[in-house]
């Protein structure tokens, strides 16, 4: 579930659902729902624009960046 909506903070204004570039978040029964998590671009637009700071991002393990210490020491 890439964006996580904190239900305690969310005021159901619908803005995140309106601006998501790929239509991931939907308003259902006046509640913002991350309806299509597999289609999230992880752009953070919803997180940045939420007027209540109710959204945090989780980066799924499928999108893991591969990190490595140089073997040569430096």
């Amino acid at each position, binding site marked *: 579930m890439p964006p996580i909506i904190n239900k305690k903070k969310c005021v159901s204004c619908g803005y995140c659902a*309106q*601006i*998501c*570039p*790929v*239509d991931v978040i*939907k308003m259902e029964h006046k509640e913002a729902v991350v*309806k*299509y998590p*597999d*289609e*999230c*671009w*992880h*752009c*953070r*637009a919803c997180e*940045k*624009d939420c007027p209540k700071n109710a959204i945090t*991002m989780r*980066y*799924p393990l*499928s*999108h*893991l*960046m*591969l*990190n*490595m*210490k*140089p*073997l*040569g*020491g*430096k």
Partner: protein
Amino acid sequence: MSIKIRNEIIKTDFLIVGGGSAGMQAAIAAGEKGIDVVIAEKADTRRSGSGANGNDHFACYIPECHGDDFELVIRQIDMTMDGGPFQDPTMLRLWVSRSFEVVQKWEAIGINMRPTGKWNFEGHSVPGNQRYHLKYDGTNQKMALTKEAKAKGVKIMNKMVVNELLLDQGRVVGAIGIDISDTQPEVVIFQAKAVLLATGGASRLYPGITPQYMFNDCGCPANTGAGHAMALRAGVKLANLDMAAGHAGPRYFARGGKGTWIGLTSDINGTCITPYQDKPSRENGDIASDIWPGSYRDRMQCGQGPTYMNCTQTTDEDLDYMLHTAMVSEGIDSITDQLAQRNIDLRKEMIEFGSYNIGIGSQGVDIDTHAMSNVPGIFAAGSVGNVKGSLAGAVVIGMVAGESAADYVKTVDEVSVENHPLIAEKIAFYSEILERESGAHWKEAGATLQNIMNDYAGANVRSESLFAAGLAYLATLKEESLKHLYATNSHEFMRVLETLDLMEVGEALMIMARNRKETRGMHKRVDYTYTNLLLNGKFQTIQRVGDEVKLEFRSPF
């Protein structure tokens, strides 16, 4: 589910399909000229497209910084990722010569083009040359462009997917859109004297770095070649689809904006593998991945990989700047966020980079210096066949399209589309998909399309027998898809239409690649291993004329 149909026809002079960077600039330019403009955007122009969260490099020529020798400027820009083959020299000159104009316009509407207080050029640069990539802060660019377009009287219709152009006597007269704001999709008809196709490139045509997650893409995954597909169906000429290539960036988190990294392209030992610099350079960036984005794949395949972005020698100051300023301006601070959440310290750890698969960017409608296609009234900007320049190319050509459309609409009469035969035909087709109670989900078709593209027109091996089979399989996939695809709401319906558009773009790409009987760049034909010098500088075009497909190699202009 049935489809709703809006009774009212939306009438305008100029319909802009796609309110991304190019579309917004076109709208502003046309609005300034006083014509009636409507933008149809499938998402919301404040946060849509590849510039949704910002961009940070604006290729431009500022005479007070670069001097008056325009030919030198052109030669040097031609050496960066925004130049090179498959761009008409006249078009390169056109966007470069007017780039500063847009920079000034953007500054005037509140986009921070000089975060350091002066014109500052960084990244994507060839050591020894002047630098042309203005380092700006694009975090609010889509908001600012939206506000400005509205101030110019432009009407913005968000959540509006345009799916078909309406033609009459060989010129465009309108379009068919689908409003997806509600669960039930609604057909909306547009009557327009001119239409701009500005739907961006085509992501999701090939499997990405995580094929299971199709939206893990460096470009905006909402850009699915809709403009390309509509253009093909309307008899518009497209150029260079066969030369589509790929981007590069971190694995397994596909992000654009590799030019924002300040580090060295290194092997697993941390040893720099490119000849361009031996120290990380904030000024130049690392041009290696611009020049040879396929290098990561090539090194992996020949056993020299993996290849890393190595920031262990980057100064603390530059690292802080890269992670907390530059990546934010560029709209890729989800990298910063993931690194922070996982406690990865770039002073100690390298990040593996990979070559991303083929994606359609600077390939598409073949336009003239007025940004018009061969079909009167159909303009294109952004992902077009003969212009590069990334963002700068898109917005300057968008501006040109807006100006040209304003002149063009004065020369033609409005044509009523009320009884256009394509409308009933399309509604019947949409209804069929929506009324199916079961069938194939769009992802099934999308996955097979990606497999076919990768296996039969991929980046490694291309040949006549592969193309012959690939085209046959694509035809089967399309036939089966048309019989079985279904959608239970407007979101899924949009995805179905995107998948069908992508199939058409894929088919055109494959037809063109089959006809290019030589090896060139990423087009590696095992049956024609040489590069045909007679095709140097030539642009291949494709055009549907009735049931025929016309292919040509044209000279550049």
